[in-house]
């Protein structure tokens, strides 16, 4: 993949060399003595647990942090990068985890934001911008109308729009912060194709990811950070997964998917859904669901697999009453249940870990305590509906301690915690309502390996203790690792059901699930793309 190999690297100066970078935040040393080298056409994976300093290092490169120590060299020349503008001048683009698009503007307007094309009269040349946008998106295998507002795009589509935006400028170094965390398998493959073609053009790529599986496929070298320090670099093709994990966490990690081998299938049926149908109202985003039948038993983890736009989140949100009226019959513990509102769902023992924890689950400016008890305040009420704050605080502390949330105190502002700890607060909030059916949507998106394993173990413990869990994930290995059963959705229909234990039915395997996920895609493939069709 790397065209020049090591010989050129010796003779020509590297595209980027960051040396002895240090960064101090008030009270915290975020980085010390970190080195990073990227050659033209090279894909460097930057690894480390959340809080290891990856984002800080990349923010320095992108000019977000003006104030740091150390030297940055571009093509062998020292470069001053102290503002995003200077970084852009050097051809450095960073695609942040929290995407930087203006939701109200169209796809095309976003791609051309700050470098709009103008006609001779000085007015915007929309036609040319639309044409160019369509071309750029086509390179990414995305067929979005350029005039569609970004707010109507799903997370994965927005990510690809960001890539298109970067491609639209002068590009020498592209930093991608977890680009695949929101993508389903087919989109990941497409992104990799794009990365390879950029690399052939000589663009240096820094790639931050928590998915160790994909590194071998896409990266040339791997640089590992831990606790703000440089741990080492390895050749991505030869390094083993276990070695990387050991480098990242500083100790060998136990199994990422700790669970019993046998399928749990003898619990009573907790959720019984038949003929579930949901049609988005005009203007509402989302995929329609058609006539779904399934059950979830107590003590069972059932996975929902499928491509982006298959309707996985819609299933959870419909059950949770967050999506508006649905038709069909739903029974909870044998009693009929008609989802009306999240409020009622919580009362009936449902809890939802939503897809996007920052946008949907947390009040980021408020404390761990506030967030943990928000859905279960009724448990701490005294007369006059006042909150018993002592009991509330004790419960919040206890629940977070049980989940191993790392926080100085329950009065810490949630927005200052790492992604993994934020997710534990979300789980603590859900568990405090004492749910009997837990709906989890992307429970480990964007969190580090250690926290992932802990959350997997937690879900398994909950199931062992008799909870019913319905889980959505874009990471198939995750579903395969934690689920007893996997239902595959495609365009709002169930197209397959797979089991951990072959005695119960077709056994869950990556290839079989993927082919079920694309079952109808074969029919529709002519013309519309995966992503486009989800919105038709």
């Amino acid at each position, binding site marked *: 993949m790397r065209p020049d190999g090591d010989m050129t690297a010796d003779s020509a100066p590297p595209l980027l060399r960051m040396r002895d970078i240090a960064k101090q935040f008030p009270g*915290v040393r975020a*980085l010390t003595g970190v080195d990073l080298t990227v050659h033209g056409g090279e894909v460097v994976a930057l690894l480390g647990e959340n809080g290891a300093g990856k984002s800080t290092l990349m923010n320095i490169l992108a000019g977000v942090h003006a104030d740091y*120590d150390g030297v940055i060299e571009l093509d062998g020349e020292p470069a001053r990068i102290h503002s995003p503008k200077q970084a852009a001048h050097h051809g450095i683009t960073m695609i942040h985890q929290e995407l930087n698009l203006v939701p109200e503007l169209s796809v095309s307007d976003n791609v051309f934001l700050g470098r709009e094309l103008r006609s001779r009269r000085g007015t915007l040349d929309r036609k040319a911008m639309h044409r160019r946008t369509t071309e750029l998106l086509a390179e990414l295998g995305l067929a979005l109308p350029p005039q569609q507002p970004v707010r109507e795009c799903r997370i994965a589509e927005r990510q690809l729009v960001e890539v298109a935006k970067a491609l639209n400028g002068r590009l020498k170094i592209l930093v991608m912060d977890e680009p695949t965390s929101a993508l389903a398998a087919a989109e990941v493959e497409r992104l990799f194709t794009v990365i390879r073609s950029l690399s052939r053009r000589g663009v240096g790529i820094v790639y931050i990811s928590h998915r160790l599986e994909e590194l071998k496929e896409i990266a040339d070298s791997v640089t590992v950070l831990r606790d703000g320090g440089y741990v080492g670099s390895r050749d991505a093709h030869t390094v083993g997964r276990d070695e990387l994990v050991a480098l990242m966490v500083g100790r060998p990690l136990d199994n990422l998917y700790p669970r019993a081998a046998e399928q749990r299938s003898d619990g009573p049926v907790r959720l019984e859904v038949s003929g579930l149908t949901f049609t988005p109202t005009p203007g509402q985003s989302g995929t329609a669901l058609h006539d779904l039948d399934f059950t979830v038993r107590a003590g069972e983890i059932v996975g929902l697999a499928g491509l982006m736009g298959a309707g996985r989140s819609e299933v959870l949100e419909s059950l949770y009453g967050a999506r508006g009226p649905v038709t069909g019959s739903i029974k909870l513990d044998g009693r009929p249940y008609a989802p009306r509102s999240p409020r009622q769902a919580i009362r009936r023992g449902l809890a939802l870990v939503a897809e996007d924890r920052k946008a949907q689950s947390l009040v*980021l400016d408020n404390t761990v305590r506030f967030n943990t008890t928000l859905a279960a305040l009724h448990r701490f*009420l005294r007369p006059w509906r006042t909150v018993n704050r002592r009991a509330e605080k004790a419960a919040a*502390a206890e629940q977070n*301690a049980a989940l191993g949330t*790392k926080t*100085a*105190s329950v009065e810490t502002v949630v927005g200052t915690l790492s992604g993994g700890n934020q997710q534990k607060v979300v789980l603590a909030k859900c568990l405090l309502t004492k749910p009997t059916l837990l709906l989890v949507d992307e429970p480990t998106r964007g969190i580090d390996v250690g926290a992932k394993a802990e959350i997997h173990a937690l879900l398994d413990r909950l199931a062992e203790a008799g909870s019913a869990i319905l889980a959505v994930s874009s990471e198939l290995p995750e579903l395969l690792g934690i689920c007893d059963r996997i239902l595959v959705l495609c365009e709002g229909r169930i197209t397959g059901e797979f089991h951990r234990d072959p005695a119960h039915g077709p056994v869950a395997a990556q290839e079989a699930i993927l082919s079920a996920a694309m079952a109808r895609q074969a029919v529709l493939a002519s013309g519309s793309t995966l992503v486009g069709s989800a919105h038709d």
Partner: protein
Amino acid sequence: MTDTLSDSPGSGSGAGAGSGSGSGAPEVPDRHRPGTTERLRRALPALGSLQSYIGLVLVIAAGVITKGAVFWNQTNLTNAITAFASRGILAVGVTLVILTAGIDLSVGSILGIGSMTAAMLLVHHGLSPLLIVPACAAVGALFGFLNGVGTTWLKIQSFVMTLAMLSVVRGIDRQVSNNVAVGVQLIGPNGQPTRKADAFAKLGTPGHQLVSGSWLPLFGRAGVGYPLIAFFAVCVVFQLILSRTRFGRHIYAVGGNPVAARLSGVNVALVVIAVFTLSGMLAGFAGPIDAAYSASADPLAGTGYELDAIAAAVIGGTSLAGGKGSVTGTAVGALILTLLDNVLGLNAVSDNLQLIIKGLIVVVAVVLQRPGFLRGAVDPLTRRIRYRRG
């Protein structure tokens, strides 16, 4: 005041130690850690921001330095606060709305119609103040409820909805009053003020003028009349609602993240309707106080008060983005505005200049209250120092 502040780091760390849930290690090096001011503020969440207290001290100092005892005496201070009490009450209601990330521009008009309602009930129907006050609050609550319904069911942005309400309510006020002010100093056949008019007048009188026959001689001698009592009581009640009740918690949740609030089982629309209704109710309640203080209900009464109310909330540290702030902070903000008015007035600063100064104070207050402002002021400095070294 100094005592409270120097005590707080201790109580803050004590609270932290109680949790014992995790290691104290800096788990997130790439996020900034709380500075001293932030820790102070966290320890005193209900007391508003530190900066607003500093502002209050500065205003008082300015008054004492320029006017000495003319400023710093009971009569002047209670007169000043009494004059501002009705606007302070508006500010409390507006704070509730702002905490949910909304805005209420209609409170000035609602106060106006409250004051007109009070005067008409008194003059034309001879109602007792004991009935007039709740009636005015109910009228205000009705308009506030309509604001809430418009923003939730009709999905109109609160700025637009309450701007429209500002206009509509003012129009109704002027229509029913025929554009004529209604005096509330009724003279009975014996040449003395009627008993009810006398009772009504007390609603707006500073305490030290309530010499004899007052229900509250003790307060009266201390200069505390009904306007002050009402303002203080409203502040206490609503601060307690915010910090102690589930409803208060839900207000912060709706303002901080409405999606998360809804998915956590909060009835977001109900909370929004409730805060608008309460804001309207408080504005209606302030109406009779304002009418009694002015001795008449002017059809233009309350014009522009919404801006004072919003300014008080903002100076007190309430964020227009929602989810952050407190009624106590707003009370301090209202005090700052009150005393500033008074100090400028005593120094014979012209009205025009006063407006300019007030506007600037709002800007300064908002800049000072930005999280990490102090750090922001220091950082460029260290950067410069570092460049010179490197």
